[in-house]
C-alpha cells in the first residue's frame, strides 16, 4: 500500500463528508422501489398512490414520492436500498421479493412495507404472519390455488394435462409448481412444466408444450408476465387456451384469470402505508394477503385459442374484455 493508493481513497472520503445531509421537509416522503418494471408491478406502484390519495395523502401536496427500479439487477437494488435509507423517508415500500430483501437487510429501523411478495415468511422478511414487532410489514400476493383450478376446469371442462411455463429461478413460481404437483392428480389432471429462465425463453418453452397439454396455466411469474404476448402467439397458433392468474394478462390475450388485480393490491398497500404515516408502528400491523379476487374473461381470445366460454362463466365475471 503506497501513498498513491491512499490519495484517491482519501479524496473519496472527503467527497462523502462534503455531501449534504438529508433534507428535513414538512412533506412526508414515501420511497418506492421495485426490482424490475412490468405491467403488474407498475399497477402495484400506481395503486399505492391511489390508496394513499384515498386516505388523504396526495403526491405533490402533502406527500413526496420517490420511485426507483433496479432494472432487474440485485447490485443496483442494494444501492437503491442504501440511497433510500439515507433519504430518511417516512416509509420505504419495496415491491417484489429481491427488492424487499435488499431493503430489509439494509435497515432495522426505517419502516418498510413490502408488496407483491408471495411468501414473506420464507423470504425471511417477517418471522411469521403475525405482527412482526420489527420495522417490517406488508401485503402478500399469495393466491389460493383451488379456486383457480376450478376456474381452469370451467374454461376447459375436459382438460387432463395442464401445462405451465415458469422461471425456475423465481421463488414465487417454484412454490406454485410444487403445490400443483400435489394438487392436480387429486383433481384427475397432470402437470407438464416448461422452464423459461429468461424472458426470451418464454416462446420456446411454450412451443415445447404444444401437443402435450390441453391448457396452459401461468402464475404471476415475472418472466412470463413480461413476455405474455409470446405465450399468446403460441396459444393462438396451436389452439391451446391460456389461463392466467393476474387479470392484466387477460387484456393481453389470456382467456380468463381469477386473480388479484395488482392495482387493488397496490391500493391495499397504500392504505397500510397511510396507517404508518398516521403514526402506527409497522411492527404492530399484521402482514396481509389480498382479499379481493376478481374474475376477468376474454371471449375474443377464447375464440382465437379454439374454445368458447360458457354463458354462465361470462356472466359471473367481474369484467369481460372485448
Amino acid at each position, binding site marked *: 500500500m503506497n501513498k*498513491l493508493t491512499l490519495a484517491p481513497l482519501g479524496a473519496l472520503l472527503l467527497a462523502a463528508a462534503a455531501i449534504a445531509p438529508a433534507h428535513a421537509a414538512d412533506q412526508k416522503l414515501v420511497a418506492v422501489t421495485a426490482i424490475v418494471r412490468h405491467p403488474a408491478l407498475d399497477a402495484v406502484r400506481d395503486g399505492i398512490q391511489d390508496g394513499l390519495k384515498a386516505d388523504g395523502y396526495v403526491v405533490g401536496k402533502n406527500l413526496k414520492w420517490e420511485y426507483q*427500479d433496479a432494472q432487474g*439487477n440485485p447490485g443496483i437494488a442494494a444501492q437503491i436500498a*442504501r440511497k433510500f435509507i*439515507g433519504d430518511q423517508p417516512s416509509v420505504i415500500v419495496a415491491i417484489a*421479493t429481491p427488492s424487499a430483501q435488499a431493503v*430489509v437487510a439494509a435497515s432495522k429501523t426505517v419502516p418498510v412495507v413490502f408488496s407483491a411478495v408471495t411468501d414473506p415468511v420464507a423470504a425471511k422478511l417477517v418471522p411469521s404472519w403475525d405482527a412482526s414487532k420489527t420495522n417490517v410489514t406488508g401485503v402478500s400476493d399469495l393466491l389460493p390455488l383451488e379456486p383457480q383450478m376450478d376456474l381452469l376446469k370451467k374454461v376447459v371442462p375436459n382438460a387432463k394435462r395442464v401445462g405451465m411455463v415458469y422461471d*425456475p429461478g423465481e421463488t414465487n413460481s*417454484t412454490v406454485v409448481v410444487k403445490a400443483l404437483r400435489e394438487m392436480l392428480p387429486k383433481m384427475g389432471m397432470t402437470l407438464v412444466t416448461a422452464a423459461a429462465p429468461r424472458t426470451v425463453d418464454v416462446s420456446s418453452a411454450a412451443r415445447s408444450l404444444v401437443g402435450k397439454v390441453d391448457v396452459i396455466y401461468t402464475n404471476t411469474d415475472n418472466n412470463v408476465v413480461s413476455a405474455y404476448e409470446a405465450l399468446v402467439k403460441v396459444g393462438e397458433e396451436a389452439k391451446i387456451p391460456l389461463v392466467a392468474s393476474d387479470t392484466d394478462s387477460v387484456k393481453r390475450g389470456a382467456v380468463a384469470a381469477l386473480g388479484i388485480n395488482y392495482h387493488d393490491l397496490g391500493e391495499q398497500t397504500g392504505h397500510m402505508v397511510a396507517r404508518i404515516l398516521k403514526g402506527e408502528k409497522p411492527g404492530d400491523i399484521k402482514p396481509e394477503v389480498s382479499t379481493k379476487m376478481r374474475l376477468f374473461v376474454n371471449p375474443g381470445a377464447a375464440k382465437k385459442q379454439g374454445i368458447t366460454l360458457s354463458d354462465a362463466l361470462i356472466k359471473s365475471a367481474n369484467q369481460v374484455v372485448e
Partner: protein
Amino acid sequence: MNLFSFFGALEIGLIYSLVALGVFISFRLLRFPDLTVDGSFATGGAVCAVMIAGGHSPLASTIAATLVGAFTGLVTGWLNVKLKIMDLLASILVMIALYSVNLRIMGGPNVPIINTPTLFTQLQPAAMTDYVFRPLMLLGVVILAKLIMDWFFLTEKGLAIRATGTNARMARSQGVNTGRMILLGMAISNGLVGLAGALFVQSQGGSDVSMGIGTIVIGLAAVIVGENILPSRRLTMSTLAVILGAIIYRLFIALALDSNFIGLQAQDLNLVTAVLVTVALIIPQLKRRLARKSRD
C-alpha cells in the same frame, strides 16, 4: 448522493472490485475471454448462503465459496485446455450450466440469510455502525487480496501465467506448461469472483439465482474505467486501477440514482450510468489532446 448511498456504493464497489481483479487476471494477464464469472459469482453466493443458513460458520462458508468458485474456473480451463473447446465458448458453457447448478445448490431460487450471523456482524465492533464498518472491513479484504496478487504475479509461477497470456508459444519454448498455467490462472480468477459472491450475499442478506447476471459486464467496465483513469504498465498500479474502477463505477450508479432532479426517471438509470462511464473514459483523451494543443 447521501451518506448512506455513498457508503453503500463504496461497499458494493469494493465487493465488485474483487470481481474486477478476477476479470483482470483472465482478460488481461491470461488473455482468456472468460464469461464464467456470471455463473461463478452466483455460485459463490449460493454456496455461502446455503452453508450459513445450514448453521456453518460464516468464515468456513466464505472459504468454501471461494474454493467452489475456483473449481468452476478450473472446469472452464479444463474444457479449453483438455477438450480444445474455444475459450469464449468454454466459458459460456460453464456459465449457463452454473445457472442450473446454482438452483440445485440452493434447492430453490432464493436463500435468505437476513437475521443470521455473517462475517460482517461477527467482526463488527459495538461502537461502529454497520454501514460504516462493512466498507471498512471490505477495504481490508480488498487491499489484502491486491497485495497477495501483486506478490504472487512476481513469483516464478505468477510470471509463468503472465508469460502464457502474453505469448504462449514463447512461454512453451521456455519450458512453461501453458495448459497448467491457464488452469491455475482461471482458478485464481474465479476464486476471487466466488469470494466476491460470498461477501455480496452476506452484505445483502441473501442469495438469489439472478444475482450473477451482468457480473462480467460490471467487471469489465471496472477494468477498463480503471485503466483509463490510471494508465500504467506496472502490475501494482494496474491492480489498484482496477479496484478504483469498480468503486467509481458504483459511485456513478449512486449518482445516476440521484439524477431525477434534472427530469430523468428511474427507467433512465442504465443510460445515465453508461453516459457517466463514457465521460470518464474520454476525459483522459481530452486532457491529452489539450496538453498537445498547448504544446503546439
